[in-house]
């Protein structure tokens, strides 16, 4: 089985994100960057699937600048077999361009399964996988919470986190799946893993080489800070709380 998995470089979910005073972007001092948490879960799931199947290969892909090579190396250190970086500046991308780049790679690599995160925690777009699946004409299961291969490894049964509960779908490969937080607990890269990763193949390609039209369908033209919310008051007792809710906030 061949699995293509994506690893996007994003701001650390524990970093405090604020808009720069000039409103041109976010303050990056003291902000760490790492692999999108949902992508870590995708890499982990790929590794588990490889263990359950024979002759499986995991190809990890990122679309980004030189720095994003780190996320490929991290995925390789976790155990992925080889990496591909599609060289592009973050500013030249939107969800659609990324999806079309991935589509070209899928045409070349012919994976049985593409595993992506359900959303990148910087842009919060939640689109790339679904766009990719439609461009390829493939079935999809987003927000996966449990993933089981079906007989002969020809497809999967996926439990998905949806409004109102957990839904199960069954799909035949090739297919696109996105991960939710409960799917698994990603491993850390081990020291031997990190050493091995240095020797694993990592190729680089440009969107032009893939023949991808880089016209943006969506452009960000400005940023603004979110409406502020200031801390209120501390109450000392339950009685005081009820009194405030009844007479001040008038919400009970």
């Amino acid at each position, binding site marked *: 089985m061949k699995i293509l998995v994506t690893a996007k470089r994003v701001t650390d*979910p524990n970093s*405090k*994100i604020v808009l720069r005073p000039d409103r041109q972007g976010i303050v990056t001092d003291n902000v760490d960057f790492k692999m999108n948490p949902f992508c870590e879960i995708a890499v982990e799931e790929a590794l588990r699937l490889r263990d359950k199947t024979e002759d499986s290969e995991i190809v990890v892909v990122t679309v980004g600048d030189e720095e994003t090579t780190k996320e490929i190396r991290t995925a390789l250190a976790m155990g992925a077999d080889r990496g591909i970086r599609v060289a592009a500046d973050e500013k030249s991308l*939107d*969800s659609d361009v990324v*999806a079309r780049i991935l589509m070209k790679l899928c045409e070349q690599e012919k994976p049985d399964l593409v595993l992506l995160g*359900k959303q990148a*925690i*910087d*842009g*919060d777009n939640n*689109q790339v996988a*679904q*766009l990719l*699946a*439609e461009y390829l*004409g493939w*079935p*999809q*299961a*987003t*927000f996966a*919470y449990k993933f089981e291969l079906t007989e002969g490894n020809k497809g999967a049964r996926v439990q998905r*986190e949806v*409004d109102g*509960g*957990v*839904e*199960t*779908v*069954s*799909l*035949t490969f090739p297919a696109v799946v996105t991960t*939710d*937080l*409960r799917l698994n607990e990603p491993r850390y890269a081990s020291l031997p893993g990190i050493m091995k990763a240095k020797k694993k193949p990592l190729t680089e390609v440009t969107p032009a080489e893939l023949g991808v039209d880089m*016209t943006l*369908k*969506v*452009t*960000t033209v*400005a*940023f*603004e*800070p*979110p409406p502020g*919310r200031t*801390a*209120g*008051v*501390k*109450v000392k007792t*339950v*009685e005081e*709380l*009820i009194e405030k*809710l009844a007479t001040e*906030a008038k*919400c*009970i």
Partner: protein
Amino acid sequence: MSEIIVLAEQQAGKIVKATLHALTAARQLAQKTGATFDIVVAGQGIEGLGAQLNGYGAARVVILEHPALLNYTAQAYAQAFAAAASGAKFVIAATTAIAKDVLPRVAARLGAGMAADVLAITGEAGALIYKRPMWAGNVIAHVKINTPVHVLSVRPTEFALAEPTGTTSPVVVVKATVDEAKLRMTYVGLEAVESSRPALTDASVVVSGGRGLKEAANFKIVEKLADTLGAAVGASRAVVDAGWVPNDWQVGQTGKVVAPKLYIAVGISGAIQHLAGMKGSKTIVAINKDADAPIFQVADYGLVADLFSVMPELTEKLAARKG
């Protein structure tokens, strides 16, 4: 057909409330562009559903019927919706799990750019700007869609519930366009979370619990207060991950976004990912024993206390007030 298409969502033959919020966004767009809007809903055996969508000012209510649409699947619904929206300039749906799943596929089929989870629509026709959250709502982006067709999911809490206008909309039932040969996925089933409480996203009061409750069994402390107030129950991701409560209860960046009149956070620290789902609430109450917990930075009323000692008292006193 109209230039604006609202994709309505139905669950077991009932239109979900989020759709009525999307109708407000459609009306705003209609006002800006001078266009009319149609409401499109898909399923099988839902001919009777038109009545629920009548009276909201739509030029038409279109009911798409097809055996392949009996249960929702991304591939079939994307085909049906995209075919029904062919020729439209705007395709809108409320941000729900289904919209997140299907709308990008519809956009791909229409060659359209999509703005996800739109908070506001500004600018003039021809130069519309969509405001949307990034980084768990810590930054609001203004985006422009460069394609002739715009696809939008809109955040229900940012658009009011549409009130009926009194007009009648003609209801048309059509056979949906679905190429079944292309479908490689099937719906197996739904493990539904049954509840007699109001839905999390509709409730005017939400009581949420976090890891401060220590163990699953203690979650009933939160549920008890919720039931006293006729409230919905929410949760932090930490307790969903721990398996204490269903995923359906999660509030936050990667869960549900709520904006009730009153939100009570019990034993929740207030990580940015949680705040992303509730900081639009009108009044926020936090109960946490750590005076420095970030939740207090957004709370209107903070009670620094051990939840195990104050929650029974709070529940009892509120019950007594209700009589």
